[in-house]
């Protein structure tokens, strides 16, 4: 960046960005503005096409079902991100202790990341099944009552969080692992010489040094969790009742099962605004430390 002899090089750079601008415009700007436009009509994939102003927004914001789906999405995101962060960090610290064999352990733990969300959903539908699932099989063997898991309104969301934890903790784990390996040795050794115990070193040396990495993890896990769809679609479909219905599951149902085109686009405009505000907030917290963006 230091040697830039004039404005001309900047202009040459712009040329290399044209394909990017075209594709990003088509795949992100166009649909966003189209959704904004359609959100003030009452289009139902038929002949009806009347201007309704902000009626769709008012209808959604006062709709209990939309509020529930937003609430569910937040509960899922906070639950899954918290569990995965703690579990991923703990695993990274443990595996970092292993001198020989650590690379093999890391590779094996990464496997779930290579599996599609829909397959993850179907696997866990079997694993947690009340009659044919191995988890309930074991519970029955040791004399405990079987659990409903995905079919129980009280356990549905916890089960979805469990499934996401199995699927995505590896991401948190591998980023923390890479971060731990890149840490400079001296501050840690100094703290150890000073007699700091493990938790003191974690709290005052390791975690502060890992802050930029924690923000990257938080950013990408939050984005991913807010968008949750496949693992719910493939297991509960949003049920029992509406206990696991996320905003994206609701949007899918309204758009493709009920042909509520304008209404679903309005829901997504509201939700996208929520997600983007969250992203900006996390990004701001990590400004100048976050290499991405």
């Amino acid at each position, binding site marked *: 960046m230091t040697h830039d002899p004039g404005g001309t*090089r900047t202009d*040459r*750079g*712009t040329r*290399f*960005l044209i394909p*990017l601008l075209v*594709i990003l415009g*088509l*795949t992100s700007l*166009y*649909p*966003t503005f*189209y959704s904004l436009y*359609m959100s003030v009509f009452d289009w139902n994939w038929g002949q009806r096409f009347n201007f309704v102003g902000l009626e769709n927004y008012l209808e959604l914001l006062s709709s209990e079902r939309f509020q529930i789906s937003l609430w569910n999405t937040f509960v899922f995101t906070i639950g899954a991100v918290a569990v995965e962060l703690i579990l991923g960090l703990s*695993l990274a610290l*443990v595996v970092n*202790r*292993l001198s020989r064999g650590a690379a093999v*352990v890391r*590779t094996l733990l*990464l*496997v*779930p990341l*290579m599996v*599609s969300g*829909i397959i993850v959903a*179907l*696997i866990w*539908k*079997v*694993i947690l099944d009340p009659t044919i699932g*191995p988890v309930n*099989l074991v519970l029955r063997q040791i004399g405990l009552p079987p659990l409903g898991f995905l079919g129980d309104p009280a356990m549905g969301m916890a089960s979805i969080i469990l499934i996401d934890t*199995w699927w995505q903790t590896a991401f948190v784990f591998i*980023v923390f692992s*890479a971060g731990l390996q890149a840490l400079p040795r001296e501050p840690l050794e100094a703290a150890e010489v000073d007699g700091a115990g493990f938790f003191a070193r974690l709290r005052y040396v390791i975690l502060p040094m890992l802050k930029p990495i924690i923000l*990257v993890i938080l950013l990408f896990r939050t*984005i991913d969790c807010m*968008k949750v*769809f*496949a693992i719910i*679609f*493939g297991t509960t479909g949003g049920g029992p009742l509406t206990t696991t219905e996320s*905003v*994206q599951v609701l*949007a*899918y149902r309204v758009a*493709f099962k009920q042909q509520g*085109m304008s209404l*679903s*686009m309005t829901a*997504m405009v509201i*939700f996208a605004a929520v997600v*983007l505000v969250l*992203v900006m907030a996390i*990004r701001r917290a990590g400004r100048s430390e976050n*290499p*991405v*963006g």
Partner: protein
Amino acid sequence: MSQQPRLTRKNRQRLELSTAWGVAIIAIGLTLFPLYWLFVISTKKPVDAFKTPPDLIYIPDFSKYVEIWQQGSFAAAFFNSVIVVGLGVVLAIVIAAPAAYAIVRFRVRAGRWLALWLLLAYALPEFLFVIPMYVLYQQIGLFDTQIGLALIYQVFAVPFAIWLIQAFFSEVPRDLGDAARVDGCTELQSLVRVYLPLAAPGIAATAVLVGIVMWNEVTIALSLTFDESRTVTIAVASYRGYAAMRWQEMAAASVTAIIPMLIFALVAQRYLVKGLTFGAVK
């Protein structure tokens, strides 16, 4: 007396190491068990698949794998995915490589805004663009086509690819690019003759990772394909029949869909960490 502290320290370290191994082995067990169970379901005889208690030792029967390939619709979906991923990855690299080059080598005007746009495009919840694209694709004939799917996948693939390629390009010594320019190369030639060859392993790893994400994609494929260009993940989901779940076919199809991704991940193993950390960690 002087020996005792050293001994306890050694013992403590040994205890720590065996505890660490214990935790690691439990974690690996919990990670791999669901996949093992999937494989077991796909290879048992129908009468034995859900017998309680399950047989722990049995002779694997691969007839379900043969069956799903012979049905044709799974094979068609599998090859649809191959085509969508092929098209999508090529498109992503062709768009992302020059953009990453420009970001690394020049002070791009409004570069900060571009970085923000990439992040926000990546963060967009799928149905925000899927529903409008469904309407557009119906009108212009791209609905249920491989090219249509590969095109819309760029919304997440291009930002992802740019972050990675940017990280690989910034490792190329600046002087090499400058030397090429002095020797009379245009910027395009410097990209093609200096940067791309030097970052070739990184580009390949990027292609593999983008390909894995596309192969596994569900939300967009579910909404923008119907029959003709249904992808492998949607084919797996379709074994959920109206009356009952066809578990064994589903399991065999799932294993078939997972295996190529595991192979690709192993091939790109060296670069996997950088890829999974979005180029943020070396």
